[in-house]
């Protein structure tokens, strides 16, 4: 018999059956700043409300002030775990607007860098899912290989994390021999490390108990919520921008798209792991194709588009025409055709879209970033309805929520 039958409680004493728990914005599990206000009934989550915007940096307004090259530095800071993908996505968008066609070698080099950054993004996500379920070792093992990826970025563009890599039409300098040696070292050593990481987690009873059944989503709901990327693929839909609208010569490569079934955390973990294997496969193919290019073709690292490609610095200091083109591009004297273009690339989290409206001026009239994290975080309350409190944390980290991309 329930308590109400025996005791007459004073009015209004047990009105609210749920406890409110504030998770964030600063919380060890939220990697980034976003807030979740959970209503808990004991340990079950009844409902949750998300608040974002704690790192809103007004990228879209900033972009209206900056000419096309300066926007590359903004795109770095969207999904900062895999900044080269954003950089190259932006450059591919500009090339679409300006009508610049990139040579094959540039495309293959871009593919190598983009797949390396996809590996580094999935590495962080998967190892952090491990950390959140209590396993810190996996994180330490794989971070070493992230350092090697950073060294490859340094050889190409000079910077580790916010890379600002490349130009409209190609790269700012040719890849050095050291860069190729480091890529070879990565291809030789990383598969063993990834295998070790997988062995630690994939059939680990504790990890499986934590993640199987946590935050599942069906394919129809995921599509309605606008999911893309590994989260959608874990739900069973094989939508990948690299295959649907190939950019940067992705159609020349053979790779598979790993797909899950239930869309829960375990499936997302497995999909990301398998995507890392596929990325290694792609890098191997691209590297082979680049090594097979000989002679003059092996020296090409940018398109022949002098009105948009910022010339290499040594040419600017020695040749007159490069100096003039550099001056014209920086001062905004080159023609940007008016028009609107929407282009998207497959980022670490899904479809990163750039909607660029140009009115012919030096800076865009309007630039909008389609940010996958922002769009799929809405589904969080549906994913965790009825789940336990510990699942709230695991779901958050397995969705790979990056605050910079969420708030832009």
């Amino acid at each position: 018999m329930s308590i109400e039958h025996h005791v007459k409680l004073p009015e209004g004493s047990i009105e609210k059956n749920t406890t409110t728990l504030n998770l964030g914005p600063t919380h060890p599990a939220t990697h980034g700043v976003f807030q979740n206000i959970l209503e808990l009934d004991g340990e079950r989550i009844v409902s949750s409300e998300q608040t974002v915007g704690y790192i809103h940096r007004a990228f879209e307004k900033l972009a209206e002030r900056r000419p096309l090259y300066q926007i590359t530095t903004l795109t770095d800071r969207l999904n900062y775990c895999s900044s080269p993908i954003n950089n190259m996505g932006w450059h591919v968008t500009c090339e679409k607007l300006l009508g610049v066609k990139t040579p094959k070698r540039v495309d293959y080099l871009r593919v190598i860098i983009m797949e390396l950054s996809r590996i580094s993004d999935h590495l962080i996500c998967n190892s952090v899912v491990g950390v959140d379920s209590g396993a810190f070792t996996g994180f330490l093992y794989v971070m070493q290989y992230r350092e090697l990826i950073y060294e490859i970025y340094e050889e190409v563009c000079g910077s580790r994390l916010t890379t600002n890599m490349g130009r409209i039409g190609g790269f700012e300098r040719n890849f050095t021999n050291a860069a190729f040696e480091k890529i070879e070292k990565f291809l030789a050593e990383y598969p063993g490390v990834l295998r070790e990481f997988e062995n630690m987690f994939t059939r680990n009873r504790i990890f499986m108990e934590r993640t199987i059944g946590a935050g599942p989503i069906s394919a129809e709901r995921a599509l309605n919520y606008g999911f893309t990327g590994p989260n959608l693929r874990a739900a069973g839909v094989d939508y990948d921008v690299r295959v649907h609208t190939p950019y940067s010569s992705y159609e020349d490569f053979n790779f598979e798209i790993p797909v899950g079934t239930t869309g829960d955390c375990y499936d997302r973990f497995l999909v990301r792991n398998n995507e890392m294997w596929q990325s290694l496969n792609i890098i191997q193919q691209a590297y082979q194709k680049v090594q097979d290019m000989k002679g003059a073709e092996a020296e090409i690292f940018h398109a022949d588009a002098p009105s948009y490609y910022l010339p290499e610095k040594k040419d600017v200091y020695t040749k007159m025409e490069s100096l003039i083109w550099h001056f014209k591009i920086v001062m905004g004297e080159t023609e940007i055709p008016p028009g609107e273009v929407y282009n998207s690339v497959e980022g670490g989290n899904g479809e990163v879209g750039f909607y660029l409206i140009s009115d012919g001026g030096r800076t865009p009239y309007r630039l909008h970033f389609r940010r996958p994290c922002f769009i799929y975080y809405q589904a969080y309350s549906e994913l965790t309805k009825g789940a336990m409190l510990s699942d709230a944390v695991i779901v958050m980290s397995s969705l790979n929520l990056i605050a910079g991309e969420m708030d832009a």
Partner: protein
Amino acid sequence: MARPVRFNVHPIKANIKDNISLVDMPEGYAGDGFFTTSLSKVVGLARQNSMWPMPFATSCCGIEFMATMASHYDLARFGAERLGFSPRQCDLLMVMGTIAKKMGPIVKQVYLQMAEPRWVMAVGACASSGGIFDTYSVLQGIDQVVPVDVYVPGCPPRPEAILDGFIRIQELVGAESVRRRNSEQYKGLLQSYGIQ
């Protein structure tokens, strides 16, 4: 022709045999079974080599901090083995990343929850001065809301720079007098931020 600079292509293995550095003893008078020195020196020595940092990572600098914490650029060598996530148990608030105006009151609240003595390190250009985001929604530096001890510039700063900032914090901690937190000057500093 590309620049002929090559780093770490064939890394040299470091020689770690007998290569462990220890902290120097403070100056004092030693005798048979006793050692006298000033209290601040001993307290400073203990505090500086066992800082408990609280990482307040918001954006890209947070990823560089994760790299600093990982095994390559180990932060634990400097005594910061235990990263606390509760401000009530930590000495050093490391603010890493852009702080938006929406987040400003939260930084202040976290700072207020820390117990004295507490230090603040602003890592990155955004935390120091707003960085590249001179916009309506970004706080132009966390020193608008909390007093800062060390600023580490960079976008993002290399892990070596973060370690350098941490070493400077350690120097500040070691040199601090035990009376500083009760002094008029410190109270005036907190008053200027609206903190009692």
